[in-house]
């Protein structure tokens, strides 16, 4: 599955996702970004219902992860688990369990056309 767990707040190290070379499987771009915000909003809602975690999507631009979609009512202040879904689309999962975060990413990737 095309994804890459980042890194910055994982147990494994402290490099930034944006500095990692994108794996060949991830080289596709999510396009057109702005026109597909509604789709992402729906997916974030689905993930919340299915897994009970807050997620939001971000456009990945170098070091910058720019907010795209994923409203939420509650804030848990947990460290963000950042998952690079493809070259320019990031998923942020507010969850303390990396395995759950990966499951969420798998699910969303199966629903997303990237």
């Amino acid at each position, binding site marked *: 599955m095309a994804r890459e767990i980042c890194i910055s707040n994982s147990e494994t190290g402290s490099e930034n996702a944006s500095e990692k070379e994108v794996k060949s499987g991830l080289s596709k771009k999510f396009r057109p970004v702005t026109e597909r915000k509604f789709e992402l909003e729906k997916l974030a809602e689905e993930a919340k219902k299915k897994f009970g975690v807050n997620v939001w999507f*971000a*456009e990945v631009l170098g*070091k910058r992860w720019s*907010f795209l979609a*994923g409203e939420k009512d509650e*804030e848990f202040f*947990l*460290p*963000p688990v950042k998952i690079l879904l493809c070259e320019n689309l990031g998923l942020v999962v507010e969850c*303390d369990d990396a395995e759950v975060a990966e499951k969420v990413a798998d699910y969303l990737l199966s629903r997303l056309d990237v």
Partner: protein
Amino acid sequence: MEVLASSWVDSLPRKLREWMEERLTPEDDYRRYMEDGDFINEKFIWKTLKTCKDPSPGEVRRILDKAVCDKECLEPEETATLLNVKDDGLWKEMFEAAGEVKREVYDNRIVTFAPLYCSNFCVNNCLYCGFRKDNKVVRRRLKLEEVKKEAERLAAMGHKRLITSYGEFPGLSDADYVADTLRAIYSVKVRARRGWGEIRRVNVNAAPMTISELEMLKEIGIGTFQVFQETYHHETYAKVHPRDTIKGNYHWRLYCMHRALEAGVDDVGIGVLLGLYDWRFEVMALLLHSRELEERYGIGPHTISFPRLRPAANTPFVQKSEYKVSDEDFKKFITVVRLSVPYTGMILTAREPEHIRKEVLPLGITQTDFGSRIGIGAYSESYSKQELERQQFELGDTRDLDEGIRWLAEMGYIVSFCTAGYRCGRTGKRIMKLLKTGKERIFCKLNAVLTYKEYLEDFASEETRKAGEKIIEKEMKELKEIVPEKVYERFEDYLRRIEHGERDLYF
């Protein structure tokens, strides 16, 4: 080093005018946003300031409550009411309320950064600027290797955030050059005492750009895009920015944040240069600008800046200005802006001397700089702390970063090097919501402590380290009270890991 003879301005060819005409496409760049003129309606501003005179204490206190509780932009009439307060006692209440708003939104942290001047080539001729084209100063543009050297020096001081600054000159100091410098800075990594130093966020202060240029900067990962209108007063703007220069076009500049937000650059910084026109008018205009951006794009200014005119080489206008802002009025300006746009970051720079910084910090300042040098190449080359003939203006405070951090710690502030929000999607509409609901302050507090700890481990002098550890202890006690147990446990774990050499852990 790229140095050009100072006579370059004398031979400015007709090409420059052609470039300007080619660059500006009014229909696309600003006219399409305008309805019956621009959003700075001067008649409305003056009328509102006039009709809200002699406010009752009750009305003023209602507005203060609103600013503290709602964290939404005030109505223009409410801001005008605050600007018309005459009573010293009420002003004192307003100063306190402004500080409360800041703590509610951002806690007691002060974000720090350093300016990096990359080029002073400029085709503009602003009467107040040391780099204006008629000034016979040495013109330089840093090569990318030189930019990297400057960034390495700054990273080795402990800085994590920069604001880069450029003059405007086609082919030399333009969007492509800005893009190249961003890439160069982001590539820097230096060894520190225990971990490493790097620049994690680069904000840009540059000339207005087209949407496609802004899209290019967005792709590279720009932090905040900052352009100050300098003055929103049309007539004064025309007086200080000659008509035959590109900066002389008021609307090209006024609508550049519209273009930035359309390009997807969702952190924008606006500002005024205090001393060009009536400061009360400028407060009203900043509010109108903030409201315009929020209404159109759902995103207000990430920061507001308000440098005061400072002496600069060969700029007689600075001495003659009749609108210079006194220290007392400066305090009032900051207070009313803080209350009027509660969610915005407010930047106080080292233009101001130590005693003024100390006085205005509690009024709602969220960011300030230390260790700043504003000459081209000034961090990595031989340079005294001030060399006016090589600077855009004179600095008021040249203390280094370590001293600045210790000074703030002694006053109870924690310095934050946090860049977390922009690296995990807390930008644009999302950060606006967190700021307005007061939730961002928790992230600010957690990340301030973590990045402060990194600084103490990697760069601080022994004296600063001692002062800093006391602040961390105090912050940890407060955090224990306000965050869930699970979050606090993770936070403690992160602190331990930082002590063991891990870096860049954040919430």
